[in-house]
């Protein structure tokens, strides 16, 4: 009898249900194997998983968000999945991007992603109309103007700025759009974030905040606050991944909002961030083949489609977007981004070991300082550049 332990980290009750059903399928077709699902609350998942692993209570299969992958892979904790992918019957349909992301940490596939998060812009149709904005903005300039107009309404704001946890994406997107480049490091290994274009991008967000186009307390807003700010009708624009759609669709009539691509910068391009999460196998597992079988089961096209819908990501197997589910107005924004060359998905350098700290702490604190006017955009950019350049060099050295 084999027992597998599967750890789910981005937990929600509905999602756990789906996972359970899929696992039950697997158990049925693999008699003798039982799978224990451990669902960690997302807010504390990192600490808990780290403690479990450090404490020797290592699971077999784990849900792996992009930001953790480099860390676990770098510590040699994850199994190399290259061979398995090669021999997998569905291996062929894995998209180019999927594989790139699987291999993000050190060029080897340490996970099978189950879906992408891609940023696009939600907007509140009613608010725009009230503010007299005729059509949704396409460029950063239009966006700024529209946001300013909405902010004139009493108690309303243009943009749901995410100044708190997880706000890095917006800064990076803005910097890239203004800079007209999606590269984080130049050929010399220097971070591009303090290039003049990028600094302008940072300044762009700071201005939005200072001009009152974002609520005062949005300096501290995280995911829940911005989403709530959006569906409560406090602010008109929200840049978010498809997963936010779940929460928003539940609380807002479909006709009240829509999703558009991210505004393009002066160079006519936008760089919506793209992220992923996937499944990994721990190196220490005693049941590698069963674990892989489970992983393969979860990632097969049918299951992946169900899963992707449930959790609000874009599926990994090519051709899945043809599904009628994705043909709605709400999904239009994301698929436009995917299919137009104006939009170049931006992959954050989460392969850097210090990136987690950078995103969650360093960038967070310094960007708040910038929003509050304690430091200038240039100082902010320099600070980031310094850290990123050093991390990049470390990473480079290991390759």
């Amino acid at each position, binding site marked *: 009898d084999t027992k597998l332990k599967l750890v789910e980290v981005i937990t929600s009750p509905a999602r756990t249900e789906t996972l359970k059903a899929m696992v039950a399928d697997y158990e049925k077709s693999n008699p003798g194997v039982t799978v224990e699902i451990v669902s960690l609350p997302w807010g504390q998942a990192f600490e808990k998983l780290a403690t479990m*692993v450090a404490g020797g209570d290592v699971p077999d299969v784990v849900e792996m968000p992009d930001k953790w992958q480099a860390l676990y892979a770098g510590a040699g904790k994850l199994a190399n999945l290259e061979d398995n992918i090669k021999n997998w019957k569905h291996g062929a349909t894995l998209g180019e991007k999927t594989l790139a992301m699987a291999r993000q940490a050190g060029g080897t596939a340490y996970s099978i992603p189950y879906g992408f998060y891609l940023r696009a812009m939600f907007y509140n149709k009613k608010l725009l109309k009230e503010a007299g904005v005729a059509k949704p903005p396409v460029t950063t300039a239009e966006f700024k103007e529209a946001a300013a107009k909405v902010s004139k309404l009493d108690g309303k704001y243009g943009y749901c700025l995410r100044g708190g946890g997880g706000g890095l994406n917006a800064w990076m997107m803005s910097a890239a759009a203004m800079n007209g480049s999606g590269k984080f490091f130049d050929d010399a290994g220097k971070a591009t974030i303090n290039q003049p274009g990028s600094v302008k991008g940072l300044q762009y967000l700071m201005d939005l905040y200072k001009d009152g186009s974002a609520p005062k307390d949005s*300096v501290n807003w995280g995911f829940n606050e911005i989403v*709530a700010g959006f569906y409560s009708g406090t602010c008109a624009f929200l840049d978010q991944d498809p997963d936010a759609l779940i929460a928003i669709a539940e609380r807002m009539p479909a006709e009240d909002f829509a999703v558009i691509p991210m505004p393009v910068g002066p160079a006519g391009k936008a760089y919506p961030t793209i992220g992923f999460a996937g499944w990994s196998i721990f190196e220490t597992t005693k049941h590698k083949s069963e674990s892989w079988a489970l992983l393969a089961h979860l990632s097969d096209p049918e299951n992946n489609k169900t899963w992707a819908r449930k959790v609000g990501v874009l599926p990994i197997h090519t051709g899945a977007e043809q599904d009628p589910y994705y043909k709605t107005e709400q999904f239009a924004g994301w698929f436009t981004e995917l299919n137009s060359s104006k939009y170049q998905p931006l992959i954050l350098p989460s392969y850097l070991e210090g990136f987690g700290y950078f995103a969650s702490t360093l960038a967070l604190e310094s960007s708040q300082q910038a929003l509050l006017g304690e430091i200038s955009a240039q100082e902010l950019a320099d600070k980031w550049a310094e850290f990123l350049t050093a991390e990049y060099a470390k990473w480079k050295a290991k390759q």
Partner: protein
Amino acid sequence: MTDMNTHLPPADASDPTKNNSPQKTKGLGLSLSYFLEPYLYLSPALLLIGLVILVPLVIGVSYSFQSIALLQPFKTGWIGLDNYRALFTDAKFLVAIKNTFWWTLYCVTLQFLLGLGLAMLLNTKFHGKKLIQALVFLPWAVPSLLSALTWAWLFNPVIGPLPHWLAALGILAEPFNILGDKDLALWGPIVANIWFGIPFFAITLLAALQSIPADMYEAADIDGATSWQRFTKITLPFLAPMIAITVMLRTIWIANFADLIYVMTGGGPANSTQILSSYIFTTAFRKLDFGYASAVAVVLLLLMLLYAAILLKMRKKLVKV
């Protein structure tokens, strides 16, 4: 005491020498058990604490002399005092110390004073006491996550009433979220913590109040004491041991307690609510630098020890009974 002759019963007692020595042994055995008795009572506590906390604590402190990351057993190594040296140049650390001080001071002082007031009120007779007592104690039973979320909610002008009330009272110029204001943000978690902590002092002090003999107040009445004098000269001295212990522990807990801050402000905006323990948390689990985090924790521990020592000294001086 070793000389057996000193234990001879008087001459008229029947043959004392004969049965004296076994008795003496029995006496010694007893004195051993006398000596061991307190340890016996303490042993379960010591065993539990030792195994579950003290041993891990020693390990935890030892991290501070190492370079150690949670997931990377191969990158550890002893580095002596390097982590501590780094503290001196760490601006964030200094900010966190300052914030810890204010955070702890405000929280402890206010919840102590309010708790004491509540305890005094509850120590009188009034209608509906049972219900009110149960109600005012309830905040203590709310998990900190839930209270943090609720208070964050209450402070949010979009979904909570507080900013509007505060603005109506003229305390705020306009209804905005103080959690987003770097000068006021710390007050959010402080209010939440006070709310949460009042019952702690109220209950302990109420229980202590109730063990003050009534005739102390009678004697003070006869001696002509006013209510205030009764309070300062009788009540407070009687409460002093309890106050010393609760204030000390609560201070330690609060200084170590980052849950509310973590959920309500995440240490922000711009580190304005960063306290040592939240800094320790981010250093350990975000920066993954366990060694450095442990060094910060050790500093916190030393500060707390110093504080406890001072308080214990004061207690010895003040508490006579």
